[in-house]
């Protein structure tokens, strides 16, 4: 399946895009999405265990992913 992944701040700079499409097998988990992202040009600047959000909530890399999910990689936050 094709999953759309949102990127922000330093990760968007690293990949040169605010969002990328990645292909992962059906039944994939968020960790598979991260691995796919890290294989892209510039993806080496994403850590192997980044913060990940699914549908506007933090999730773990072991959580499953569906094509309809809104997935995002979250760089270290710096609000306030």
């Amino acid at each position: 399946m094709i999953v759309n992944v949102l990127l922000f701040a330093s990760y968007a700079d690293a990949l040169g895009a605010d969002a990328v499409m990645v292909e992962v097998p059906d039944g994939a988990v968020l960790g598979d999405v991260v691995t796919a992202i890290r294989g892209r040009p510039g993806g080496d600047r994403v850590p192997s265990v980044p913060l990940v959000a699914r549908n506007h909530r933090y999730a773990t890399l072991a959580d499953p992913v569906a094509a309809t999910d809104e997935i995002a990689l979250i760089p270290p936050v710096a609000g306030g």
Partner: protein
Amino acid sequence: MPRAALVTRPLDVAALLREVQRPANGAEVLFVGTVRDAHEGRSVTGIDYSAYDAMASAELERLVEEASVRYATPDVVCEHRLGTLAVGDASVVIAVGHPRRAAAYDASRWVIEALKARVPIWKREHYADGSRAWVHHGR
């Protein structure tokens, strides 16, 4: 009721204070975060604040709801400003009203610490030499 918002206009501290004042409250604590002119020895001229808008709004709302339950007061309001801010501009205001001052301070402190830990907002500093860099807390 607890309320949180991301905004792109200047923050109105007096209005936020009024929002948490009720006859049952004896104390209001306001926290105002402002853009400093220096960071780790570098001269700062401004900051771009950006966010994962949908999630940051949701997370900020969850956070003020949690503070409201945890500290037993409906009067918890937080606004965070996004966009390009100049030195001295307020980036975040947290207003808490409570019958008791100790709880008002504790709730205010809890919200800012949780916000800095959890809410997907990022800042890119502008330096006096023209360069820019993403800033991480605790780096």
